[in-house]
């Protein structure tokens, strides 16, 4: 029973990490209606920035982390300015193609700048796990889970209660209406990309702390996809529940079903849930449903 509870807790914490990366998806999608397939690459870019400032420049963590977040924000801003700002109002297909192109480009840039070598990632969170009786909880995931919940609550408050956040929510609903009210659509989208890149970098720090850094870690972007779709692409708060659902189901499948089927079912099950939710409820659990007056 203790092992079962331990698996549930660990799964929930991994799910919250997915939710943090998915938060980047959602923030960008809300503002620009762009489904950013290169979100995992933003995680890797963030990871390399942290590695560069901490291990290459040798800066203290208290200095390198804020600096890395600022640099990640600059990268997000530049990506939006260079590749996406001209696409405002264009078809969804164009946007999707650009983000897929961006995914390939960013992978190429990472390989070109840093090569395929596996590098050590700085230890940002304590390596020593937390022991709760017989249960063992990884410290990086625990701190990451708390950070995810704080970020989700903070961003939900920002988007629903503050004037700046409501401006961005108005952009999420309707670009033309938002601009007819004096809201700078381009400014809101640029801010969303900055926020998306910063969230991805925080995700990289939690995911990679004390591990190895290669461009293969960008797969976490795809792991976060089912969480974003289950929550609904406009819902920040819903990511918490969706992340926990996906994480727990994945953990239990890996630990209790994989031994019977020879493995890999755990890595497939989130995508099965994603396909099911797309068929049953395409707007996700908490996404904006179409309101039509008849």
């Amino acid at each position: 029973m203790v092992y079962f509870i331990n698996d549930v807790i660990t799964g929930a914490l991994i799910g919250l990490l997915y939710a943090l990366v998915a938060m980047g998806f959602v923030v960008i999608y809300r503002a620009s209606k762009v489904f950013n397939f290169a979100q995992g690459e933003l995680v890797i870019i963030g990871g390399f920035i942290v590695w560069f400032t901490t291990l290459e420049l040798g800066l203290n963590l208290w200095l390198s982390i804020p600096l890395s977040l600022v640099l990640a924000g600059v990268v997000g801003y530049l990506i939006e300015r260079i590749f996406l700002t001209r696409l405002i109002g264009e078809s969804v297909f164009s946007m999707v193609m650009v983000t897929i192109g961006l995914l390939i480009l960013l992978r190429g840039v990472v390989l070109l700048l840093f090569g395929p070598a596996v590098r050590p990632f700085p230890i940002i969170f304590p390596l020593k796990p937390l022991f709760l009786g017989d249960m063992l909880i990884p410290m990086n995931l625990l701190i990451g889970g708390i950070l995810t919940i704080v970020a989700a609550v903070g961003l939900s408050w920002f988007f629903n209660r503050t004037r700046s956040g409501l401006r961005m929510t108005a952009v999420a609903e309707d670009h033309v209406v938002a601009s007819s009210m004096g809201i700078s659509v381009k400014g809101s989208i640029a801010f969303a990309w900055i926020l998306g890149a910063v969230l991805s970098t925080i995700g990289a720090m939690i995911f990679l702390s004390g591990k190895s850094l290669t461009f293969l870690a960008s797969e976490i972007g795809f792991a976060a996809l089912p969480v974003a779709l289950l929550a609904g692409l406009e819902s920040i708060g819903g990511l918490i529940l969706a992340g926990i659902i996906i994480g727990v189901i994945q953990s239990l499948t890996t630990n209790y079903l994989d031994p019977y089927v020879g493995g890999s079912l755990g890595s497939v099950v989130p995508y099965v849930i994603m396909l099911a939710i797309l068929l049953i409820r395409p707007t996700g659990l908490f996404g904006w449903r179409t309101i039509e007056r008849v």
Partner: protein
Amino acid sequence: MLELNNVEVTYSDVILALKGVSMRVQKGQCVALLGGNGAGKSTTLKAISGTLRSEDGTVSAGSILLEGKPIQNVEASEVVRAGLVHVMEGRRVLRHLTSEQNLIVGGHMAPDAAELRRRLDHVYTLIPRLADLRHRTSGFMSGGEQQLLLIGRAVMAAPGIIAIDEPSLGLAPMMIRDVYEVLRQLKAEGTTFFLVEQNSAAALSIADHAYVMENGRIVLDGPADKLAQNEDVKEFYLGVSASGERKSYRDIKHYRRRKRWLG
């Protein structure tokens, strides 16, 4: 306050939708723009408010001046900052936000929270129904309530001029009366209006001056009370013939012949 001089609008570099439109709105006035479907009324409004771009339209000739400053082809957000708010047709509320969140978005440029609160109170005094509906998701409000919300949202921006497109479109007569009552109160407070309407009777009842538009051109203009007495306006836009009787649909060809301003 607002001046259009020989404005031409082209869509996709091909379709000429406005052909030399000139008009003027003075401070404190309510000016109505009347015309049938496809006359170019909404295009005129979009040209003024900078929302043409989203439809691949552009002001290809002429000038639009707001308080003496040219605003043709500038970003819609710049036009709002210059003091003109466009209430778009089709009741485009922010459907997933509550009524009050819509209003706060409307007043997002208020200098501080106290001013935002003051504007909210003003809107709730002007349109008490919105106070009752403040927590209602706006997508689930009735058509009339949504129209009132849009007017309230425009008032929240404390603009110099409100340009409003078809406020009575698709509303029940009782609701049209309520909407126009709010517009009358705003006018009494000194708000300047540019009103685009197909419901000519309602528009002429509140307007000081009116323009009539056909096929992208202004074909007639004058004080609203005089236009309301004009035989052609009565016949074509108020649905009343020279003898005071409503025309039969059978006589539609006769209508066409009498549209002499097109000749």
